[in-house]
Structures are given as structure tokens and as C-alpha cells.
């Protein structure tokens, strides 16, 4: 029997060997951090501090009453010097709190570890998630306490911990599984308790055999949690593809994983939750893979939220002729126009590529080879979706399920005519949504 997998997908350039044996190393806090107020999908939190205030590490600096939101916390101790719009790695200017560090890293006094799991109710744990500022750290930044709350009439049956890390270059989740193994397991237990399920899978791509081994060893005879090796294929870590690979079930079009009884949580988020429960220190730092051909000392670094990319790259050293800076992985990450943007909760990687590694070349006419159709993990027809978008035939694009596109980029990656398929489909999705809105 072959390894667990899904249909479609590609085998992109992985280059994980650059950093996968580099242990998680803390980078000294910078003199100044830029902390965007909103680091979540949903409602924007409001600032709780004013310019001139003194703050300590772990102090909540923004929050809101809204359910679909998550607070943010100071990652250094020092003085708030500005609350103003700053460029975020998502590519937008967003309100941010700028803190000048006093270099002391004084933690807030009343941060307390939580009691043992057995002594906490699911509601306690859910509240803890929110208090800790927990959001999906794989990149989506969806508030975790919302994710673990099953909507009325629906029920979780299975917790899936996502350790596939299918993007090239990124190794932060790999290192977390190796070095924070106990936290991953503890966090998994906590998620099982929150959702009230008896069974959890930790899905790991087979190129991380050492992580699979250590997880299995530490789990021992512990019941309920199973480590599942997955075929190495992108986008194995996409929620829907992961669920398909592990359970054979498909999340209904337009639906959520809970519709098939699944909760999917990234290993980084899971371990961070455990660390928060054990220490009481909210999400104020994260592991970031710094890699790419223009980085002198690539590695997996523990950095304070709000540290600028530029500071980190200076620390790691820049070589060659850097031409492209990416937040996240090479397949779905966001290219940056300036290194002044800060690390946020969803920043899994900082990649800096030399000129020679930035693909160039004009798009050629489509020859209808159908490679994009073969690789689409949602079974869409990217060639037609692009065509309909460019021709403004939005009704057809919608009929062909353009909104089901997960934007993994396999189509553009594989296109032998270098056509901007997913890039055009993204525009098409926005157009279709705008058209829907107008009609209502």
C-alpha cells in the first residue's frame, strides 16, 4: 500500500536540507518591535495602551469583545513610542503598536501557569486559547478558540495535528516536532480535551522520519494519538487535502473541516498552546525558518513577534545579489517590497533569494497541455478559470467552481508556458465575490 495522500499536487523544489538540522536558536530582541494590532482573521482588536505607556513582556496591548478575534501582547518590555499605520507582511498598511525595548525583557508579574489538563474544563481551555492570543501559526492566523468551537448541531470526532510542512525551504515545524516533542503531545491532548474527542492523528510527511520516530517513541503506548506518515507532495498540508489523505473524507464545497468531524491544527500552534498552558506566557515569539540563497547563516530562529525582517536578515547575514524577499513559503508566501515589515504570528518563514533563483521569462500562449488540470488538488480546470476571468465571463468561472480554488499555486508552478494561472484566478475569485455582493 502506498503512503496516505490525495489526488493531484506537485513535487516542488524542497531544499529543506539547508536548515532541517539547524536547531531552534533564539535571536536577541531588537531595540524596537512593531506589533500590528490585528494578527488574526476576523475583527480587529483595539489598542489597550497609549503612547508613552510602559509595558512588560506578555502584557496584553490590544483586544476586543468580538468573538472572532484574538488579543496581541507585548513581546518586549519598554515604552510604547507610537501607535500608527505600518506596513505588514500581508502587504497592507495596518495599525500597529511600536515599542522601544528597555533591553530588560521583564515579564508581566501575574502570568501564571495553568493547572493540569485534568483540572480544566473544555471551556477553561477555550478561554485560555483566547487569552494566550493563539491563532493558526501555519500562516492563516485564524483564531484558535473559534476553530475549536463546533457550530450548533456539529460535532468533532477527530483532531488532526498538521505536521506535513509541505512547503519547500520551511523547517520550523520539523524542528518543533524534534525539539518540542513533549509540547506537541501535550498540546494535542489539550485539543482533544477542548473538542471532546478520543482520537487524534499527527500527520507528518515521510521526509521527516526523525520527527515521526521521536513522536512515536515519546507517545509510547499512550492511547488515542497516532502518528501517520504522509506521502511527500505539495499541498499535503492544505487542510482539505490533509483530511482527504488521512480519512478519505472530503470537506463539502464551501464547508469547514468540522462538517466532516475534523479539527486541523498546525504543530507549531499546538506546541505554542502547550507552552502557554505550562508557563502562562502568551504568544509573544515564534520559530521562523530563515533560508534562501541570499542568506549567509540560514536556520530556525526563535524571534519576538514584531521583529523586523531586516533586523533578522542583518543578524543572519546577506550574501550575493538578493532580489526577492518572501514571507512564508515559496509556493504560497507573500513577496515583500521592503524588509521593514515585522514578524507576525503567522510568519513561518523569511526567505531571501538571489537574483539567479528568481524565475524570469515571459508567459507564452497556452497550448492546452492540461498539466494544470492534472495537478489541481481540487480537480478544477485552471486553464478555463483563467480564460473566463480574463474574458470577464464570471458566470462561467463561478459555474466552474472558481471559489473552490485553494490558491496552492500548483497550476502556475507546473505550467510549461509560464502562465500566471493562480494569480489570475485570485483576481477572478475577487471579481466573482464582488459580483455576488452587488446582486444581493
Amino acid at each position, binding site marked *: 500500500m502506498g503512503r496516505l495522500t490525495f489526488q493531484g499536487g506537485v513535487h516542488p523544489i524542497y531544499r529543506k536540507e539547508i536548515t532541517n538540522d539547524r536547531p531552534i536558536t533564539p535571536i536577541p530582541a531588537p531595540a524596537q518591535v512593531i506589533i500590528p494590532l490585528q494578527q488574526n482573521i476576523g475583527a480587529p482588536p483595539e489598542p489597550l495602551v497609549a503612547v508613552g505607556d510602559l509595558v512588560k513582556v506578555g502584557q496584553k496591548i490590544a483586544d476586543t469583545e468580538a468573538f472572532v478575534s484574538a488579543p496581541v501582547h507585548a513581546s518586549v518590555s519598554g515604552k510604547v513610542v507610537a501607535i500608527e499605520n505600518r506596513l505588514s507582511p500581508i502587504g497592507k498598511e495596518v495599525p500597529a503598536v511600536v515599542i522601544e525595548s528597555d533591553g530588560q525583557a521583564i515579564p508581566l508579574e501575574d502570568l501564571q501557569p495553568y493547572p493540569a489538563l485534568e483540572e480544566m474544563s473544555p471551556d477553561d481551555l477555550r478561554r485560555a486559547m483566547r487569552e494566550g492570543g493563539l491563532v493558526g501559526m501555519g500562516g492563516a492566523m485564524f483564531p484558535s478558540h473559534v476553530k475549536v468551537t463546533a457550530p450548533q448541531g456539529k460535532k468533532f470526532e477527530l483532531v488532526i495535528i498538521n505536521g506535513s510542512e509541505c512547503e519547500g525551504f520551511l523547517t520550523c515545524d520539523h524542528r518543533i516536532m524534534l525539539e518540542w516533542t513533549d509540547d506537541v503531545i501535550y498540546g494535542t491532548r489539550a485539543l482533544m480535551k477542548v473538542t471532546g474527542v478520543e482520537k487524534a492523528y499527527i500527520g507528518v510527511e515521510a521526509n521527516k522520519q526523525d520527527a515521526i520516530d521521536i513522536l512515536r517513541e515519546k507517545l509510547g503506548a499512550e492511547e488515542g494519538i497516532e502518528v501517520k506518515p504522509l506521502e511527500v507532495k505539495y499541498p499535503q498540508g492544505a487542510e482539505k487535502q490533509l483530511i482527504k489523505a488521512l480519512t478519505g473524507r472530503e470537506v463539502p464545497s464551501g464547508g469547514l473541516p468540522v462538517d466532516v468531524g475534523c479539527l486541523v491544527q498546525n504543530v507549531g500552534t499546538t506546541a505554542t498552546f502547550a507552552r502557554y498552558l505550562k508557563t502562562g506566557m502568551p504568544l509573544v515569539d515564534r520559530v521562523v525558518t530563515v533560508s534562501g540563497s541570499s542568506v549567509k547563516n540560514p536556520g530556525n530562529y526563535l524571534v519576538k513577534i514584531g521583529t523586523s525582517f531586516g533586523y533578522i536578515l542583518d543578524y543572519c547575514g546577506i550574501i550575493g545579489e538578493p532580489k526577492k524577499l518572501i514571507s512564508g513559503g*515559496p509556493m*504560497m508566501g507573500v513577496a515583500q517590497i*521592503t524588509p521593514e515589515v515585522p514578524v507576525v504570528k503567522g510568519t513561518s518563514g523569511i526567505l531571501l533569494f538571489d537574483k539567479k533563483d528568481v524565475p524570469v*521569462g515571459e508567459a507564452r500562449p497556452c497550448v492546452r497541455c492540461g498539466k494544470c488540470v492534472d495537478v489541481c488538488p481540487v480537480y478544477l*480546470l485552471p486553464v478555463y478559470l483563467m480564460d473566463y476571468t480574463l474574458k470577464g465571463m464570471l458566470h462561467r468561472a463561478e459555474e466552474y467552481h472558481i471559489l473552490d480554488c485553494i490558491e496552492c499555486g500548483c497550476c502556475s508552478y*507546473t505550467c510549461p*508556458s509560464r502562465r500566471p494561472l493562480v494569480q489570475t484566478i485570485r483576481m477572478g475569485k475577487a471579481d466573482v465575490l464582488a459580483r455576488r455582493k452587488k446582486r444581493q
Partner: protein
Amino acid sequence: MEKLDNLVVSSSPHLRSGADVEKMMWHVNLALLPAILLSVYFFGFRALAIIILSIAAAVVTEGIIQKATGKEVLIADGSAVVTGLLLGLNMPVHVPLWLPVIGSVFAIAVVKQAFGGLGSNFMNPALAARAAMLAAWPVHMTSYAVPFVDGITHATPLSILSGAAHGELPSYLDLFIGNVGGVIGETSALALLAGGVYLFVKGVIDWRTPTGFLGTVFILTWIFGGNAGLFTGDPLYHLLAGGLMLGAFYMATDYVTSPVTKKGRLLMGIGAGAITVMIRLWGGYPEGVTYGILLMNIATPLLDRYTVPRIYGTVRK
């Protein structure tokens, strides 16, 4: 940070697989090399002259039109070479040497460039040109030669089989290696199969179209191909004879004029196979591969429309 003030920004993905249409086209040309060599072996250097003339005419026509219409001149992309080569391989060895030239000019200028160039033509240029030449100069286009013999004959294995010509049916072995009458590039099933396997291994062609094509011809000729009633046909003979291998592996699989969906590609092969058999068994021509593929080319948009795959997370209605 002055090193980072010249960053390029683009929408993800930031990597490309390196797959390249040009490389694919050259793979096709390379895959046809055994067929070219065997055509020269069987039919002499005149076969090579036909191939060279037809390729040269295709490439020159493409270049002139691209230049004249202000487009980028992309003759090195190999697509015009493929068209010229396939058309050349579809000529009998004794055609006058101006015929491949006219055929290639027609293929590129009318069938391909008049509809917008690479990616926009709705019929396979080489096949459409072959059909046009067959209609315009039927005698030239059907005066076949037998390997190693200088004379002209009208007898091909298929025309003998259909009763249109007299002669002794060649053996399976001769059919397989190509020691039979026909156009220069179609006779050797061996050479064409070898190239087809190469294209499959290189990921250039999908198995569905050739399998559907060959499978359909096999089954239908077995059922209806015999004179002694149903299921008395000789399917192996039909597989090896005529232009089937050339059509199934190199022309029905033409990206531009075949469906993009997996099911569509299979139907493309099945449809072309069914039409081929109908023409071979009951039509006026001994061979039907050309029209089988051309008719399916025209049906390609429809096939795409009606074979949209089930999307992840939806239930087929």
C-alpha cells in the same frame, strides 16, 4: 539594508517547475527520430528530402508570418518543426517535391497562424494539411511505394484488406517493422511505438488518448472486421496497418486540439478510434485515421464542456 532596496514583488508561487513547452516539442521531434531513420532505410533518401523540405517550409512560413504580423518570432520553439515533420511523414515517397512545401505552407499559414498561431488553432495543422492535399492531389497523395522497390503502387495493407487493391497481405512481422507500402512515416509500428513510449515516460503525452484510440480500433475491428460474421476480424492487423500508430501517439495527442480533461482525453481516443474503424470498414477510403482525429478536434470544446471533473467536496449531480 541598501542591498534590499531593489526587491521584485510578484504574486505567489515564487517557483517554477522548469517545464517548458519548447522542451516538450523537441521531445516530440526526438521521439520521431526512429521513424525518420526507418523511413530513409525503407524508402531511400527521397524520403529524407521530403521531410527536410516540409520542415523547412513550415519553419520559414511561421517565421515570415510572425515577423509580418509584428509578433515575436518563435520558430525555435519547435512547434513548426513538429508540424512540418508530421506532414512530411504523411507523404508517399513519390510525391512531387513541391507538394510537401505547399502542404506545410497551408498547414502553418491557413490552419495555424490564420487562427492566431500556437495554441489557437482548432485542428491539427499537419493533419488538416494532409486532408487538404489529399483532396487537391488525390493521385499524388495515394501513389504509395513498396519499400526497396522503385515502382509505384496503390496497394497498402489496408487497401488490400478492404478489397480495393489486389495483392498478397504482408506478414505481421513486416507490418510491425514497417516493410510495407504506405506513406513514409507510418509503416513502422515498431519505430512509432518506441517513440510513443519515450513520450509517455517523459510525461509529454497522456496514456488515455492513445490507449482509447488503439483499444477502440482493436475491439471494433475484432467485432465487425471479419467477413465470416461478428468476432471474426483481425484486430492485430488493423492495429499495425495504416497510419494508426502515427495518429494515436503523435497527432491525436496534440495538446492544442485535444481536450484538457482526463475523461475528455480518453473520449478523444475512443471517438477517433470509432470513426477510424467506420471509415476503414464501411467508408470510401481504406484509411480513416486522418478524419477520425480531425472530427474529434472539432468536438474538443464540447468534450471539455461535458467532461468537467467532479470538484473536491461536491457530489456529482
